[in-house]
């Protein structure tokens, strides 16, 4: 199997690895079962301690990984989970250079958000329960990123989904109000269905294992992908599309993005952790993990790129007019993940992971900043009632501003480097004999313009100008010291985090070098699939262009919102209505999907059961039988007898089938 030899690397046993995963689980169990008996301090100690310890252990392991020969990975096989014929599935985990980055981001940002939560949730009565869920989420997320095979990844995939529903609905005591959780639930189900079918197909073609790495280059999914690419490219494309549909569910892409904005109903640190930094990027991570499969399917990659670009633009335009501070950030998240998906689609896996990382920094910082604002203003989320908060919340303001600069793509903040890498790839990367997808590039650039505008609209309306809310709230607004530290750290990362991925013409792209063993074969060597321009001039030109775009967006926002009197929103304009109503997508889904589904359920209940079974079969056939048997009396129908009648009808049906149909 020549095609997969480049993926053959040695494994090294790691004894710390299981503990990284188990610690958060332990925390969840302790806080979940006995949390009520513990003091708040103990709960915090368990909840935060387990994650911080996991972070420390992760750091040790990643340092060890860095010392290993290039491309080798750490792994641990706990035991054989199950085997069916030739298929062996081990309960095994690995840290390779790709999962190492995710590991650092998840445990690092996760630790900070846990610390932040101790302040944010201080007065909440469900304090222990909250930390139990949060730890359980960390456990699932670690399963997802460290899983060595597709099924372990799927365990985490389902687990993070479940925790996400629990946390979205954390403050809802009424199921009817928890529509948000339900929406997240239904859309993710659709994605999971696709994921499962894809897994089944792979199971079908598998060479005895579903591991992401083959032993000595043979076996595992890489070989399956190579086989499919060779023998059944149509099937490969189908599988890729199925997994991509799974990714659109988890990573909130068109058409399954609708749940993410509604998921903002949960506590803000949760939004920062799950719906910005970690879980929603799982789809991107999964596609990067399966790069050996996606890269082989031209059609699937094109679909991925186009959907990503459209999502980026679509969500950014909705973000232009939203007035809820968290909703703006939510649409911004959808849009930014769209950029990552674009990157995957055009073959820029490094860029996708790079942006995933920087986005985790600045978006977590933005969310936590918004949490700080919401906390200070007693759960006010409408930016029209804010303004001038820089006087009251200085730390929040500065960190927020830094993150806004980062997301807008101002040099030399983190987002600048990662976004430019994506745009550079979109503009120049192409397969042998085809052209770069310029359409994708243009759409992405427009999305970047919108991003700069709405982020600074948000910033100006919140922190600059004059306060527009009521006085009482203003007097009591203050920052919580324990909540400041995570903000500062994250803002620092959002400032310098981009330097690991300097532009290509400098030949100092540390991240690319780090990920070389995983993605390098896509661009170099005899099996190279993607070709990128090496022109320094072109890269600099594109970079300047995107800086100009960002400045243009900021200038617009400045012009409109840095004034005494805010501009009247053009509420009657058709485009404003369209955007305010989020393109009526929710209404569309409600009419096309949700209502028919509900109607089917109640139809089954009312019509099929009551009318057809009870009315037609039971009464009708019982009457028939009664007429034959008794002839004179009207049949008196009781429920049990209805059931017996169903049995008789069933037997008659079987006899008919046996005698006449087979």
């Amino acid at each position: 199997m020549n095609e997969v030899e480049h993926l053959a690397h040695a494994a090294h046993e790691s004894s710390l690895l299981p503990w990284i995963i188990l610690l958060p689980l332990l925390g969840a169990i302790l806080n979940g079962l006995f949390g009520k008996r513990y003091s708040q301090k103990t709960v915090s100690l368990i909840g935060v301690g387990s994650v911080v310890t996991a972070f420390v252990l992760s750091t040790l392991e990643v340092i060890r990984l860095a010392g290993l020969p290039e491309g080798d990975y750490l792994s641990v096989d706990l035991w054989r989970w199950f085997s069916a014929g030739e298929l062996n599935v081990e309960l095994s985990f690995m840290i390779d250079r790709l999962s190492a980055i995710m590991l650092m981001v998840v445990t690092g940002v996760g630790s900070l958000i846990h610390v932040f939560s101790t302040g944010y949730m201080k007065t909440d009565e469900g304090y222990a329960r909250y930390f139990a869920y949060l730890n359980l989420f960390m456990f699932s997320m670690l399963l997802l990123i460290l899983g060595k095979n597709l099924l372990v990844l799927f365990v985490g995939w389902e687990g993070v989904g479940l925790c996400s529903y629990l946390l979205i609905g954390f403050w809802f005591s009424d199921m009817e109000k928890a529509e948000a959780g339900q929406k997240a639930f239904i859309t993710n189900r659709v994605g999971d269905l696709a994921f499962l079918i894809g897994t089944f197909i792979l199971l079908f073609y598998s060479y005895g294992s579903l591991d992401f790495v083959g032993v000595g280059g043979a076996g595992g999914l890489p070989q399956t992908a190579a086989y499919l690419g060779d023998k059944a490219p149509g099937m490969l494309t189908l599988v890729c599309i199925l997994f991509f549909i799974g990714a659109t569910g988890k990573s909130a892409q068109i058409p399954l993005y609708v749940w993410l904005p509604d998921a903002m109903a949960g506590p803000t640190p949760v939004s920062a952790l799950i719906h910005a930094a970690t879980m929603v990027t799982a789809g991107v991570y999964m596609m990067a993990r399966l790069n050996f499969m996606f890269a082989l399917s031209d059609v699937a990659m094109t679909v991925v790129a186009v959907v990503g670009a459209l999502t980026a633009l679509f969500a950014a335009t909705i973000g232009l007019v939203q007035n809820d501070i968290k909703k703006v950030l939510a649409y911004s998240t959808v849009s930014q993940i769209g950029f990552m998906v674009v990157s995957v689609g055009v073959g820029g896996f490094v860029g996708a992971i790079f942006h995933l990382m920087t986005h985790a920094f600045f978006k977590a910082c933005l969310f936590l900043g918004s949490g700080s604002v919401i906390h200070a203003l007693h759960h006010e989320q409408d930016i029209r009632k804010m303004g001038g908060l820089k006087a009251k919340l200085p730390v929040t303001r500065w960190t927020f501003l830094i993150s806004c600069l980062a997301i807008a793509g101002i040099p030399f903040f983190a987002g600048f480097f990662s976004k430019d890498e994506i745009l550079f790839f979109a503009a120049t990367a192409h397969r042998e004999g085809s052209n770069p997808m310029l359409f994708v590039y243009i759409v992405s650039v427009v999305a970047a313009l919108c991003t700069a505008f709405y982020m600074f609209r948000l910033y100006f309306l919140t922190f600059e100008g004059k306060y527009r809310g009521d006085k009482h709230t203003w007097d009591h607004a203050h920052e919580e010291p324990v909540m400041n530290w995570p903000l500062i750290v994250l803002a620092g990362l959002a400032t310098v985090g981009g330097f690991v991925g300097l532009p290509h013409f400098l030949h100092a792209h540390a991240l690319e070098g780090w990920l070389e063993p995983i993605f390098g074969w896509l661009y170099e060597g005899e099996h190279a699939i993607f070709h990128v321009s090496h022109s320094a001039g072109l890269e600099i030109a594109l970079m300047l262009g995107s800086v100009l775009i960002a400045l243009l967006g900021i200038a617009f926002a400045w012009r409109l919102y840095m004034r005494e009197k805010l501009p009247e929103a053009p509420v009657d304009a058709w485009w404003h209505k369209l955007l305010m109503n989020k393109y009526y997508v929710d209404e569309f889904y409600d009419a096309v999907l949700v209502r028919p589904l509900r109607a089917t359920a109640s139809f089954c209940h009312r019509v099929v059961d009551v009318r057809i079974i009870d009315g037609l079969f039971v009464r009708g056939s019982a009457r028939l039988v009664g007429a034959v048997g008794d002839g004179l009396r009207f049949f008196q129908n009781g429920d049990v007898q209805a059931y017996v009648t169903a049995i008789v009808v069933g037997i008659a049906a079987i006899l008919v089938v046996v005698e006449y149909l087979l």
Partner: protein
Amino acid sequence: MLTPPLLAAAAAPAAHAAAQQPAIPLSWYLAVALILFAIGSIGVLARRNALTVLMSVEIMLNAVNLVFLAFARFQADMTGHVITFFVIAVAAAEAAVGLALVMGLFRHKKAVNLDQMSALRS
């Protein structure tokens, strides 16, 4: 075919009897039994009185007994006869439990009609 000695010994005279041509063919027995079975089923389906339903079930079981006996007789095999005794015993146990349940029903509803039980439904 292997038969335990006990049954084999018992089956010997039956084999002898079957050697003589029976006056009534097998299908007649089966027809009567199936008609009885159908009557019993219709009773279970259509009668509202729980006691009548119980009796209908008994009719069905007896119809099956007839089938067993007919087959046993025509195959000169004792197994069918033996089964019949088991069926009679089980039917008695079933009837005892059934009557107890009817008593319970009567205590709650002051009636023994099956169509008065519809508190449990979807």
